[in-house]
C-alpha cells in the first residue's frame, strides 16, 4: 500500500479547476518534486495532502485513511501526527525564539523538550542561534529553523512548498543536504519548487499545468547522486549550471508576480 494516494482529485474554485483530475501515488520513503508554472495548482495540492484543505471531488488516501472524508478536527490530528510542513515564507512565530518555535511544534504534538529542540537546531547548524528571535535571523537561518520544527516530531511525510524560493545558493545547498539526510532516514519528502536544480535531486519529478498532471520524470541517477561520494561532483554541476539557473529563476518569479497582480 502506498503511503499517499490521490485518486481523481479535483479542486474547483467557481469555474477555475485549480486541480483537475489528478491521480498520484507516493510510496513510503520516496522523495518527490513537484514543478509547474505559477498558478498550476502546486500549493493547492500541497494544502490537500497536508490536510489543510479538502478536495472538491476525489479521494486522498494517507496511510490508508481517506482524508477527504475526515472532519476538521481529525485532520488537525493527522497533520499534527504525520506531517511536517516547510513553507517559502519561513513562517515562524515572531515573538518566540528559534528554540521556542521548535518547541511549539512539540507542544502541540506531545511534550515540549528543550534539549531535543536544541538538538534539532544543532542538526540544522543553528545551535548558537537558538535564543534569537526570527527578526534577528537571516532568511536562510529562518528556513533552517522551519526545517528543525518540521522534523522535530519525526513526521512520516515532510511537505515543503518552495523551501528554497527565497534562499541564496549556499543556503539552498544546506537545505538540499538536510533533505538528503531526511530521505536517508526514511522520511517521505514532497517538495514543490520552481528550481530545476532543486527538483532534480529528487527521485521523481511531477509537473503540473493548469491543474493537470502533465509529466512525470524518474531520476535515473538518483542512487549515484545520493551516495556521499557523488556529492562533490554534484556541487560542481551546480556551479556549471549557475548562470542558466539564475535566469530561469528570474523568469519564473516575474511570471509569478504578473499572475498574482
Amino acid at each position, binding site marked *: 500500500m502506498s503511503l499517499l494516494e490521490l485518486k481523481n482529485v479535483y479542486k474547483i474554485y467557481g469555474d477555475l479547476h485549480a486541480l483537475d483530475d489528478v491521480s498520484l501515488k507516493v510510496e513510503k520513503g520516496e522523495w518527490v518534486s513537484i514543478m509547474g508554472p505559477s498558478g498550476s495548482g502546486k500549493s493547492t495540492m500541497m494544502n490537500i495532502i497536508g490536510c*489543510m484543505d479538502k478536495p472538491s471531488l476525489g479521494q486522498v488516501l494517507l496511510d490508508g485513511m481517506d482524508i477527504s472524508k475526515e472532519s476538521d478536527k481529525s485532520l*488537525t490530528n493527522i*497533520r499534527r501526527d504525520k506531517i511536517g510542513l516547510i513553507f517559502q*515564507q519561513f513562517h515562524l512565530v515572531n515573538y518566540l525564539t528559534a528554540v521556542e518555535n521548535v518547541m511549539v511544534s*512539540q*507542544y*502541540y*504534538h506531545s511534550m*515540549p*523538550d528543550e534539549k531535543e529542540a536544541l538538538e534539532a537546531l544543532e542538526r540544522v547548524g543553528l545551535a548558537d542561534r537558538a535564543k534569537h528571535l526570527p527578526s534577528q535571523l537571516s532568511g536562510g537561518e529562518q528556513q533552517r529553523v522551519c526545517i528543525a520544527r518540521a522534523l522535530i516530531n519525526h513526521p512520516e511525510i515532510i511537505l515543503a512548498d518552495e523551501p528554497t524560493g527565497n534562499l541564496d545558493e549556499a543556503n539552498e545547498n544546506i537545505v538540499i543536504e538536510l533533505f538528503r539526510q531526511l530521505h536517508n532516514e526514511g522520511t517521505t519528502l514532497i517538495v514543490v519548487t520552481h528550481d530545476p536544480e532543486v527538483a532534480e535531486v529528487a527521485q521523481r519529478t511531477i509537473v503540473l499545468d493548469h491543474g493537470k498532471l502533465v509529466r512525470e520524470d524518474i531520476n535515473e541517477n538518483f542512487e549515484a547522486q545520493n551516495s556521499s561520494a557523488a556529492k562533490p561532483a554534484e556541487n560542481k554541476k551546480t556551479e556549471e549550471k549557475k548562470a542558466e539557473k539564475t535566469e530561469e529563476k528570474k523568469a519564473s518569479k516575474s511570471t509569478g508576480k504578473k499572475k498574482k497582480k
Partner: protein
Amino acid sequence: MKKRKMFLRMIFASLMRRRSRMIVALLSVAIGATILSGLVSIYYDVPRQMGAQFRNYGANMIFTASGDELELAAVNNAAALIPDEEKVGVAPYRYENVRVRDIPVVAAGTDPEGAKATSPYWSVDGNWFTGAGEMMVGANVAESFRIKTGDMLEVTYTPMTDDSAADADNVSYFTVTGILQTGGSEENYIYMTLDDMSALTYESDRVDLAELSISAGAEELSGYADKINAADDVHASLVKRVTASEATVLTKLQALVLLVTIVVLALTMICVATTMTAVVAERRKEIGLRKAIGASDRSIIREFMGEGMLLGLFGGIVGSVLGFVFAEQVSVNVFGSSLIFRPLLVPITVIASIAVTGISSLMPIKSATEVDPALVLKGE
C-alpha cells in the same frame, strides 16, 4: 506539567515581546479596573462618609421620659445600648426658668462635650463653658442684657414648692466664657454644666431630654430606638427630618455610583473586545501557522484566553492600586476625609478584571478559531 510551562512561556512571551502592542490593551483593562475599584470603594464608603457629613446637621435621635421623669442614669444606660464607635455624641439637657437681673430666662444644663458633638454647627464667640462657674450665653440673651465675654453674672432660681416660702431663692455666680450663635431658638438660652444646674436647683440627676448624634443608617437607627424603647425607662425617637433626608441622599448617591460603574464596565468590555479583535486580526498568520503545525481550536482558544486573562491579571493589579489612589482623592476632595482601605477589594478587582477581559475576549477568540490554515499559508 511541562506542557503548562511551555504554555505560560508562550503567553508571557507574547505579552512581553509584543509589549508596544499589548500596552494599549493593558491600559484599557487597567483604566477600567481603576475606575471600577475606585467606584466600588466609594460606593461602600459613601454611607460612612455621608453619615459623617450629616452628623454636622445635628442630633438624629432624641431621648425623652417614657414615664414622669427622665433620670440621667437612665439616659446613660440607654445610650450604652448603642455601639461606642457609632456614637458621635450624647447631650442630656435640663431646662429651668431662672432669673438674671430679675428678668426670667431659660437656663439649660448640659454636658459641653456632648453638646459640642451633637450640635457641631453651633458657633461660639469666645469659648465653650467647661466646668463649674462657667456659662455660655445665647446671642439674643447677650444682646438684651448687654453681656460680654468675661462678665460675671448672678443667676437666681426659685424652687417651686407647695408651701410658699418665696424667699428661699437659690443664687449662683457665673463667668461668661462665650456667646452662642446658632441662628435658632438656642440663642435665647443660657448654658451651664449639669452639675452647676444641680447646685443651683438643689436637685440632681433629672434631665428633660437627651440629644444623640449617631453615625448609622436609617435602619440601624430605628433598630436602636426599638431596642431602647423595649426597656421602658427611656423613650427614643428619631429626628425624621435628618434621618430621612440622609437616607434619600445616600440612596441617590449610591445609585449614581452604581450606574457609573456599570457604564464603565460596559465601556471597558467594548474596549477590550475591540483590542482583542485587532490582536486576532493582526495575528491571523500566526494563528494559521499554529493550526497548520497541529494546534486544535481548543489550543488556540486556550492560548488567546490565557493571554487575555494574563492581561486581566496585570490590569487588575495595576487597577486596584490606582483605584484606591483615585477613590482616596475623591474622598479627600469631596468628603474631606480619608478612605478606609478594604483589602478584600484587591482580589475582587483582580478577579473581576480577569472575568471582564475573559468575557469580552470570547467573540474575538472565536473568530481566531475560524482562521483557515490553508488560506493563511497561501497568501504573502
